[in-house]
């Protein structure tokens, strides 16, 4: 019977070197063997030497898997697709760097790891803000990709729904937030909800009511920190002049916004304007000092909710005063 290998025994220090030398030799031998068995083809010099048959077979294979290659066979349990994300990255980078020229402040305030709730102000029709905040954090912290929550009417909107889910959007509801946190994910929520998305231009950067304190309640129940985030610029990307309610009711939408471009130029009018964005991340609000049964204290929840709202408002105001104009 042989005992465990004692690395401190005499001669042990040389052993790894000996081993690696042996290994290198063996690998060289293997390489030489491979080279003799599979000779490298000469680069094709002329037109006549193109292997038409191979090209044809390759084309056939490409055609038969058309539409398969840009998606993976597997998605995660909320429908996010790594391959779609990787494909979308250049576009997201373009939007991030050149279209909205996003400035990110305070990324080091985000905890190293573990689940957390990120709370931001909501604006605009399509959830570009969620996508961009999530992307901003992912660019600097590749191991962390916050899942952003999307309102019901948007996550079931035809044509929008499949893409949002593949890019990491999740329907905003308590069950989903709790489940994501329990699996250790960072969750980006917009407590203003639809009220935030339908803010008209003259109400910009004035936060609406933060729901009924659901965010704080989830944080208290799951014991995760809350991180306030202020987004400046997104509210001007879709300046809503006024809401036009009667045709919206006919179409079954919650609202029909009228922007300088939207119903006028059709779907093209849905393109956001290239405003300058500033994303400001605030100090995490820790809940460690609170008792575990604080989730049942409604007054505490509403006070914390109001504190959170003013925290986000301060971040927005700081961002606004730092900014020169809407465009730069």
């Amino acid at each position: 019977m042989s005992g465990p290998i004692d690395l401190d025994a005499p001669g042990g220090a040389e052993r790894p070197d000996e081993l690696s030398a042996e290994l290198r030799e063996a690998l060289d031998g293997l390489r030489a063997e491979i080279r003799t068995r599979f000779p490298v083809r000469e680069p094709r010099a002329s037109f006549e030497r193109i292997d038409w048959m191979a090209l044809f077979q390759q084309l056939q294979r490409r055609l038969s898997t058309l539409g398969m290659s840009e998606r993976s066979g597997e998605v995660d349990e909320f429908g996010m697709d790594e391959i779609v994300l990787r494909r979308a990255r250049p576009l997201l980078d373009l939007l991030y760097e050149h279209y909205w020229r996003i400035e990110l402040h305070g990324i080091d305030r985000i905890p190293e790891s573990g689940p957390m709730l990120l709370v931001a102000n909501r604006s605009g029709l399509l959830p570009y803000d969620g996508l961009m905040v999530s992307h901003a954090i992912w660019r600097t912290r590749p191991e962390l990709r916050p899942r952003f929550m999307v309102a019901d009417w948007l996550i079931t909107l035809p044509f929008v729904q499949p893409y949002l889910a593949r890019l990491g959007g999740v329907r905003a509801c308590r069950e989903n937030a709790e489940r994501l946190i329990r699996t250790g994910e960072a969750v980006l929520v917009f407590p203003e909800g639809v009220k935030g998305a339908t803010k008209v231009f003259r109400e910009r950067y004035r936060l609406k009511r933060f729901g009924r304190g659901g965010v704080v309640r989830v944080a208290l129940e799951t014991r995760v920190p809350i991180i306030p985030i202020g987004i400046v610029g997104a509210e001007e990307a879709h300046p809503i002049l006024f809401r036009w309610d009667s045709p919206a009711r006919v179409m079954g939408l919650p609202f029909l916004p009228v922007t300088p471009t939207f119903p006028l130029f059709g779907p093209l009018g849905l393109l956001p304007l290239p405003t300058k964005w500033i994303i400001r991340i605030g100090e995490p609000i820790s809940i460690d000092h609170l008792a575990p049964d604080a989730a049942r204290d409604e007054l505490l929840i509403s006070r914390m909710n109001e504190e959170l709202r003013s925290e986000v408002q301060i971040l927005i105001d700081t961002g606004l005063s730092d900014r020169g104009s809407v465009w730069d």
Partner: protein
Amino acid sequence: MNSPGVIAITGLGTFLGRALVARLLQHSSNLRIVGLDLRRPFRLDPLVRFHSVDLTEPTANIRVAEVLAEERAEAVVHTAFRSEPTADVEMDHELETIGSLHVMHACAAAKVKRLVVTSSTMLYGPWPDNPNFLTERHPLRGHPGSHSVANRIQVESLLAEWRARNPDTEVTVLRNCWIFGPTYWDHVARYFSRPLVPKLVGYDPLMQFVHEEDCIHALLSATLRKHPGVFNVVGRGVLPLSTVLRIAGKRILPMPPPILYRMAYYPSQGQTGDPPEGFYDYLRYLWVADGQRGWDAFGEPVYTTREAWLSFVSTRRMRRYR
């Protein structure tokens, strides 16, 4: 009660009933299996004691109670449900709701110690405001366009009442999602085996399947061991509908929902007695169930959603191999 000695199975001819009998016969030789159905199934094992019962008769409860008392049944597995809806809406109601009620009453009269009922996660219904994972506590909202789902919801609510009145009986409800596998066949499998599959354009919900083996295994464990309560029986993982169809190499016919619903109205009424919404809304919105409780109770499923689907696809030779 841990393991019952006499097991009665209603709906011996259904897929689950038949598969359960085969498993029970393999499992142990000192079990006595009693089968109830309208007709004696083809090539029934001679060890199974068969009784012909028509659950749609008004006095079926008396007849079932007689059989259960005579055989001294300790556990009843109720699988007498149609695998697909029929246009005969009244008959479906008689068999599924009233038939289940008869079985419940008979179980109470015969003092059966365990009752296992199969159900479906379709009962949660496809709704835009469903959370991504529906737990067993979620209300059963069903779909207004599907009468068979409505019947099953009635069965579950009657069963909940019955359970409150009969606390001595262990009641297990198994809600399985869409079953796929080499031998299982129903209207869902038929939809997916069409050469040209109509799909609602603009919608791509996440789908969840369970393999027939995992489904039968859960039913077997619920029959033999003590697992009172409601369980979702589903496979791990989800797949978008578009990926499901692409794996099978299907040609997709994209249709806007209003046009499909109008065009398919009469064929669908004739076939299932329901408007097409009753089926196609399940391919429009999310209705994925959280299977954690079931996995904890019956063990890890062998097949994931993807593997269940691949097993169906490969046995049906749907995939175009290149």
